[in-house]
């Protein structure tokens, strides 16, 4: 796969060229010029629209996974162990 170097000013010739950059495009981590070139390609390419949308939906769903597995209640003995460490450190730090 050939991927265009960012900021060359050359338009993307085909979908494969921008395939490697799609996550950075969605995360807005590409230089503005490269983003613009990708946008211009996608505007005239229904298969790319479809693919980018499906990738975006996948990322959206991953964000929602945060409400998943939860730990059991913290036993009092474990909380006490943590609290002791916190107080020891605080006393040393603020001594």
């Amino acid at each position, binding site marked *: 796969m050939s991927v265009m170097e960012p900021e060359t000013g050359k338009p993307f010739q085909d979908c494969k060229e921008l395939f490697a950059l799609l996550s950075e495009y969605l995360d807005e981590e590409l230089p503005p010029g490269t983003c613009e070139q990708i946008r211009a390609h996608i505007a005239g390419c229904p298969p790319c629209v479809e693919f980018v949308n499906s990738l975006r939906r996948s990322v959206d769903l*991953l964000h929602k996974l945060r409400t998943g597995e939860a730990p059991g209640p913290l036993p009092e003995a474990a909380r006490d162990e943590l609290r002791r460490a916190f107080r020891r450190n605080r006393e040393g730090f603020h001594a």
Partner: protein
Amino acid sequence: MSDIREVELARDLLAGKEEAFDRFVETFRSKIFRYSFMMCGHREDAEEVSQETLLKVFESFDQLREPERVKAWVFRIAKNACLMKRRKSVFAPSQELSLDQFLPASDQDGGHRKLQIADWSELPDTQVLRAELRDVLSRAIAGLPEIYRGVILLRDVEELSTEETAAALDVSLEVVKTRLHRARLAIRQELDEYLR
């Protein structure tokens, strides 16, 4: 960036405020557990990693130089605690994912190119994930090689920035970006198969 409440919490902890202790445990324990569970694959290991990570945090929070980076700092400790478990992952073996394996096939339909992918409009657009979809996603993440799983959990599930993820995992920004993209493509492909 860390959430502003998390940064304030880290500042309160550094200031030695007693009430910050319980809030810190409440805020971070579930995050650490979720990450560890998906990395270790065992509930008991994840419970232990959560406790060991928090213990290390409270023993050494005076070394947190930048409260703004508290999340990366905590997850770095969690990552090391996971590694210390040294239990072989129950999930996928370590391997590289290539971009080419995720390029969707296409065919011609009346002169127009059409991708051979599922109809994603059937996915429910709700705030809460259905249990079935949650299982599909969890299995897809679990099936990723470890180096990709760690990145997607921190970037897309816990929503750390690229910089925070790089700091937590001790890799470069470029490595985070490359692994994240391949991990997302793999998850997208699994969802696509589920939707067919």
